[in-house]
């Protein structure tokens, strides 16, 4: 019996763990048989392995008949709210429709069954695809050259940090220039990856407008400044209008500027990183460019640079071969060390390319503008929702593609938190929103990014769900706090994954530690509800 007007009920298969479905003798698939002549010629090679190399006992994998494996994973897929099945407005994620046509093209043998080292003569189609998309990305971003080697946004940003490092190193300045400036609402990777690359990180806090002011940046700049790495608009959906001044100030101080375009959806065809003065940038192909998110990965980052940085890009680069074809340039030169094996997640490149080709320049602009339109529609409606406040009231600009709301007032008046709302909303058949990344400066945060794919009816469905929860918070707070009620699983004991005595990351660990879950001697866990 559903507890909301939509009548939504998540599938709840209570599907056992695969290891518990094992039946002796069952087989899911039979590997190819070895030809009798081969077996006769070489014998049982496994048996003649040196003792130290041979496995003592077969691995304890489950034995499951084929159709049961299929059913198992299909049932699991039914308990998963991908964008294909329902509205997902998770902030900072840029959820959008991943067109099926692109999937079908990518799954063909001419892309799926390519070996990266099979030789450029047999990969001309792939190289042409990458080359064309490179040119497209240059036009979109105002950069001069792209690599698609990094396998995610964070890895793309790390690549930017490595490029900055290589640049200063080439000028003998690395010892002197060891500080990267970022902002609190840039993605955590904008602070983490420069730290991993060996830089000191200076984080600018937001002022009353919700973004850092020029005077804050000026205070942070010195002759130790190596660069600026930030997201704009930030994860709050607010564009920092001083961005050009930021870039100029960092350039004057001798630093480089890297534009994390994770939130680039509203800027497609509207603003280019190159025109804003940036020296390099990165885009998430699995966000902005519609390649599917893949349950947290088939990620790919497009990292673009201005001409003077081209020599530092990791190899190989795709280049024209001078006779109408393409080649891979492996000449290391001053290229930074490889970020990832081979040339990149080419399936994501194909899908991104297809998406841009389908839309064209006018379409890209429509994507950006519609994302902003949809977001401001959501904002208009949510403003009036009881318990919702919009932080940084001094900032009167319309937001761009996402909004970070606050349920602080709802919490104060009812005790219902943003995490309660997040847990409760899945009962309405929609994917939940995300609160905030760290630092969670906004109390009871709730970040919504509708993207450009959704219809008005789908946005209204989400609004209806949130309104219902708001109403519930003010009339029956306990109910609002107790969700979800119709999800694929009942509420879990959240301390277990945080407790070293209880956590279990494998079936083996689970069997060993399960008794501890009900023990009297469990330790008290101080934990938090995080921002993910």
């Amino acid at each position: 019996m559903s507890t909301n007007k939509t009548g939504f009920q998540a599938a709840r298969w209570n599907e056992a763990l695969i290891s518990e479905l094992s039946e002796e003798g069952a087989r899911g698939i039979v590997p190819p048989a070895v030809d009798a002549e081969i077996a006769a010629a070489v014998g049982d090679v496994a048996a003649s392995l040196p003792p130290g190399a041979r496995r003592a006992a077969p691995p304890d994998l489950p034995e499951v008949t084929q159709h049961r494996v299929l059913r198992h994973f299909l049932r699991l897929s039914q308990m998963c709210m991908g964008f294909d099945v329902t509205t997902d407005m998770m902030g900072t994620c840029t959820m959008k429709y991943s067109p099926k046509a692109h999937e079908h093209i990518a799954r063909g043998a001419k892309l799926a069954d390519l070996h990266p080292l099979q030789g450029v003569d047999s990969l001309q189609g792939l190289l042409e695809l990458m080359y064309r998309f490179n040119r497209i990305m240059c036009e979109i971003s105002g950069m001069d050259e792209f690599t698609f080697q990094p396998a995610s946004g964070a890895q793309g940003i790390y690549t930017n940090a490595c490029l900055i490092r290589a640049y200063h190193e080439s000028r003998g300045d690395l010892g002197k220039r060891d500080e990267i400036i970022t902002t609190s609402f840039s993605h955590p990777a904008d602070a983490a990856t420069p730290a991993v690359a060996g830089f000191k990180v200076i984080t600018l806090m937001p002022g009353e407008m919700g973004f850092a002011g020029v005077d804050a940046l000026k205070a942070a700049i010195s002759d130790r400044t190596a660069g600026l790495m930030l997201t704009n608009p930030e994860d709050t959906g607010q564009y920092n209008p001083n961005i050009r001044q930021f870039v100029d100030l960092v350039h004057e101080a001798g630093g480089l500027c890297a534009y994390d375009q994770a939130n680039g959806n509203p800027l497609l065809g509207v603003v280019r990183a190159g025109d804003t003065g940036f020296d390099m940038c990165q885009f998430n192909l699995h966000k902005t460019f519609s390649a599917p998110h893949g349950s947290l990965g088939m990620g790919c980052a497009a990292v673009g640079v201005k001409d003077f940085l081209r020599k530092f890009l990791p190899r190989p680069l795709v280049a024209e071969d001078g006779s109408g074809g393409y080649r891979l340039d492996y000449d290391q030169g001053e290229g930074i060390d490889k970020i990832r094996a081979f040339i990149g997640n080419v399936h994501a490149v194909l899908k991104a390319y297809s998406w841009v080709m389908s839309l064209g320049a006018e379409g890209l602009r429509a994507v950006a503008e519609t994302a902003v339109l949809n977001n401001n529609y959501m904002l208009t409606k949510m403003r009036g929702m009881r318990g919702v406040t919009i932080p940084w009231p001094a900032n009167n600009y319309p937001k761009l593609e996402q909004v970070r709301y606050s349920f602080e007032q709802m919490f104060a008046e009812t005790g219902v938190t943003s995490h309660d709302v997040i847990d409760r909303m899945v009962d309405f058949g929609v994917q939940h929103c995300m609160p905030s990344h760290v630092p969670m400066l906004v109390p009871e945060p709730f970040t919504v990014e509708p993207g450009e794919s959704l219809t008005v009816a789908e946005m209204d469905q989400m609004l209806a769900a949130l309104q219902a929860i708001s109403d519930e918070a003010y009339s029956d707070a306990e109910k609002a706090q107790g969700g979800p009620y119709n999800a694929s699983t009942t509420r879990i004991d959240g301390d277990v994954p945080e407790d070293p005595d209880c956590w279990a990351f494998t079936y083996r660990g689970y069997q060993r530690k399960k008794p501890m879950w009900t023990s009297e001697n469990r330790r008290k866990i101080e934990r938090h509800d995080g921002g993910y």
Partner: protein
Amino acid sequence: MSDDNGFIHPYVPNAAPVPLRRLLKEIGVDNVTDLYVSVPEELQVKGLLNLPDALPSEHDLRRHVEAIIGKNLSCRDHLNFCGAGCWQHYVPAICDEITGRGEFLTAYGGGTYSDHGKNQAMFEFQSLIGELVGLEVVGTPSYDMGAAVNSAVTMACRITARRGVLLSGAVSGDMRSQISGFTKMVADVDTIALDAASGLIDLDDLKSKLTSDIGAVYFENPNYFGLIESRGAEIAEIVHAAGALLVVGVDPLSLGVLAAPGDYGADIVCGQIQPLGIHMYGGGGCAGFIASRDEERFVSEYPMILMSIAPGAEEGDFGFAWSTMQRTSYDKRHDSEDYAGTTQWLWGIGAAVYLSLMGPRGMEEVASGILQRTRYAAERINELKGISVAHLDSAFFKEFIIDFADSGKSVAEVNAALLVNGIFGGKDLSGEFPEFGQSALYCVTEIHGKKDIDRLVDSLAEVLS
């Protein structure tokens, strides 16, 4: 767009005039451009970008893109013997079915209650890998094997509070590059020499380099050249005696037959996910994993998301949640020593399906079959005049080196000639390992039948004559 005539396209419904005008009205602005006032005019693009003409028709788009990639030759219609970190194995239909499911394909950051199925599939990936490697903690997928190795060796350094890393010399050039870049600021990396005869690490050289500064020792099993290391337990003892941690890299597809490194003393295991039911995608199928014992001092250093099981509200119920996120760069931000983000979870799900289908017998059969086919191929090739297979007397899995020195031909020439016969020859090692001269790394898997191997042998014979 930018006027209320809108833009009609299947991917952007609200750009059409009717919803566009309605939304503008609800928001209270005349034009979408009014919503961009925070963006300075002078930064905005004037007019439209200069992009190729649009292909809004799905039919036209498919023709266009398929024509481009149609210029590729695929490993489905050509005989492929390339390996070197990405391998052609059989991808079961059910793996494709599941990795193609829209629910998994288009899920992302959903949590305990909205994406229970994804979480369970991930937990099962962790579990099944754990069985193969003999360890109780397995993380969610890394970007690739190199990233897994980077995370693992730097973890080991943090755990031991030491800076030194010793890498086996039998590691790919690409991986050496990845490690060099990542560890530049935090670790001192040195190489363990290889024994010329066996192609495996020289234990004397290892011992001589194992100072009290060394935190991590890394070797692969099988190594980059396909050679199988049987002295794992002995190496573990040597490494531990010096106070360092042993990190072993594996091809999980070999572990139906090869020893689980957790059983012979590896502290951290890294591995590739691609061989487990994932198409090569020109290298896009690559993903990695790391695993260790369940000890707080190890778990606290994992950089990636860890999926833990947890009890539900009723007897027998369970769910899953991301554990201890304060380990990760999501929380640590500028205090991070490693970074986390979207990686390759979909391939982890595919691998969970693969391992569920294969079971212990399947894994044992595929590995032992590969051992047989590889040996058959190596022995037949070795008989050819002008070429020889390195370390023929050693045990090797899936890959071996062919030395073309005596043939007078370069690997490039040979590969070009093989291509004419519809064959992709092995990876040219002459640049990566100049000491091997004109050598190539050949890969034989369960997809190669006797006919395929014989065809390679005959083609090589023809090319060399």
